[in-house]
């Protein structure tokens, strides 16, 4: 595809991005740079505003679902939620390749855009995997509550895991970084954006169990093998603020 010297800006939503996809494929030219509200402030140049068109966006969504392999569609979706500067431009390349091939996008690793996207998808899913273990719940009334501080937008990936694990519970996970609240009620998942941390009337009262957990961890430690560097590598300090065992 030809590259035009244009700079575009959109609202940062997935539908907005699909509008960008629609427009660039119709123009038969990709813009040099695509800005979102997060990246636009740092730029000097004025960009052309691409207004989100929900109707066209949804149409593109369904077209891509039809045309792309499910794995490749997922790759595009994951790539959109990954933290990567200029990801929109890379994603356009990825869509172009995916439309021309029957093979997996992963097998096009030789293309710099695919390589960059895959790397950041892995980082995001890696953090998600770490959090699946490091999230700590406590019962507040009959709700299992947890607070997290992830770098990446992991909530949509984290919630299904806990929905499967605790199908009969009410769960709330609050993401402080993205001000996002995940609510899982008996397996049904809802996400609420731009919310503050929920306040509970009653405080949790779980001193005994916390103490048992700390006692257990102390007891399984082999002092002769002390290796704090390994501990830090596997469990970076940034996760520890919300973990029961590191709270006083």
């Amino acid at each position: 595809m030809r590259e035009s010297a244009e700079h575009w800006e959109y609202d940062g939503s997935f539908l907005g991005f699909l509008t960008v996809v629609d427009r660039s494929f119709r123009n038969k030219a990709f813009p040099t740079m695509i800005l979102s509200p997060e990246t636009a402030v740092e730029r000097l140049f004025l960009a052309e505003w691409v207004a989100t068109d929900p109707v066209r966006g949804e149409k593109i969504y369904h077209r891509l679902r039809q045309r792309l392999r499910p794995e490749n569609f997922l790759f595009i979706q994951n790539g959109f939620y990954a933290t990567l500067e200029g990801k929109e431009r890379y994603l356009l390349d990825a869509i172009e390749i995916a439309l021309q091939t029957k093979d997996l996008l992963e097998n096009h690793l030789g293309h710099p855009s695919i390589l960059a996207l895959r790397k950041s998808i892995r980082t995001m899913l890696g953090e998600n995997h770490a959090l699946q273990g490091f999230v700590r719940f406590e019962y507040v009334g009959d709700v299992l509550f947890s607070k997290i501080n992830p770098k990446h937008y992991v909530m949509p990936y984290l919630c299904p895991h806990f929905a499967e694990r605790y199908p009969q519970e009410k769960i709330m996970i609050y993401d402080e970084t993205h001000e996002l609240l995940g609510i899982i009620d008996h397996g049904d998942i809802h996400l609420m954006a731009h919310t503050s941390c929920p306040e509970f009337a009653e405080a949790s009262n779980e001193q005994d169990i916390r103490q048992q957990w700390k006692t257990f961890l102390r007891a399984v430690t082999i002092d002769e093998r002390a290796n704090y560097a390994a501990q830090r590598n596997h469990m970076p300090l940034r996760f520890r603020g919300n973990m029961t065992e590191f709270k006083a």
Partner: protein
Amino acid sequence: MELERKIEILAESAKYDVSCSSSGVENNTRPGTVGSTQLSGICHSFTPDGRCVSLLKLLFTNACIFDCHYCINRKSNAIPRATFTPQEVADLTMDFYMRNYIEGLFLSSAIIKNPDYTCELLIKTLKILREEKGFRGYIHIKAIPGADEKLIEELGFLADRMSVNVELPSRESLKLLAPDKDPFDLYKPMKQITTVKKEQEFLPAVRRGPSFVPAGQSTQMIIGASPESDRSIVKISENLYQKYQLKRVYYSAYIPVNQDNLLPAVTTEPPLLREHRLYQADWLLRYYKFTADEILSEDKPNFNLYLDPKADWAVQNYQRFPVDVQTATYDQLLRVPGIGPKSAQNIVKARKYYRLHLTDLKKLGIVIKRAQYFIACNRETPAGLIKDPEWIITSLISSKQYQILKKHNTQSTSEQLTLFDVERFEHAKSR
């Protein structure tokens, strides 16, 4: 006794069991109302010794009737003893599981009264968890050697992974250090698990309900309490992987817990570096398609503690290199130091539609510093390298690393390999 005190005693007694993985269950067909498993397993915490905590690792009791010399729970030791009730273990597991502290339960036990009785207590615990609590999460259980076959089978249907510790790498050491244990008894449950699992495979594919030990079995060996060579240990592991389809063999550097004239002195440092090399060799067996004979030979039965086994193999077989990354097969790529399974796959994927260049390799996850001596790309090799084996060895080990390795080295000078001139090496590194 208070529950917290019991946890303290019985977790402390269980800590020398290495296995803590929660991986290997592919399709969880177990009925139940709470819990799930993940193929890759999940680590929930890490203790200050850098080991992962995935499962609630407990001994059901540490009141043992046996007197194995290497074991902290031997009956002649004066340590506090405690015993859980099945209900206590089940409740504690659920309390921790609901708060996402753990991925499941790892339950082992000392032999109380006799093996059958011990086994029945474990079965009772797992039944409460599976049937009353509807728990679908991960359970790793120790098979009790010497227990009745029927009991072992029942246990196998309740658990996800089962393990029998072979404890020591040879029959002679076992006889000497674990006089109450019958070596035959140790391998019997292992064999039984393998046979029952094989039989299950021939049943119709679609089955509901629990399957038999879906995550397979593992075992553990103590390193450094007995005089076996590294080669014989690697050979045993290879045999276990092939013969019994074990998922993992764990190695545990012996930490002197008991004063005993048959064992290393209490002041001896645990052979952590040797354990590390054994794990590296173990990975070579499982993921890099090496055989035990390639890793160590009869005239070199011990590891070179300064160089990892893969680099060691590569230097000794230098005539096979350089390998051209554009054309080499996946198996050939795996043999290059600095290239692992992931980066080898990346290479294979990346070169499918595009021509590689030496400068791309770093982005694909290859450790150039190590790989540069062994690779070429479209017949072009990295420029300006000296291809003398001794030089290569020197540059594969950084001087900082060398100092650390020297400190951890537990081999005596007579055991050490004369693969490279240590004196010259010291000189090169001190500059």
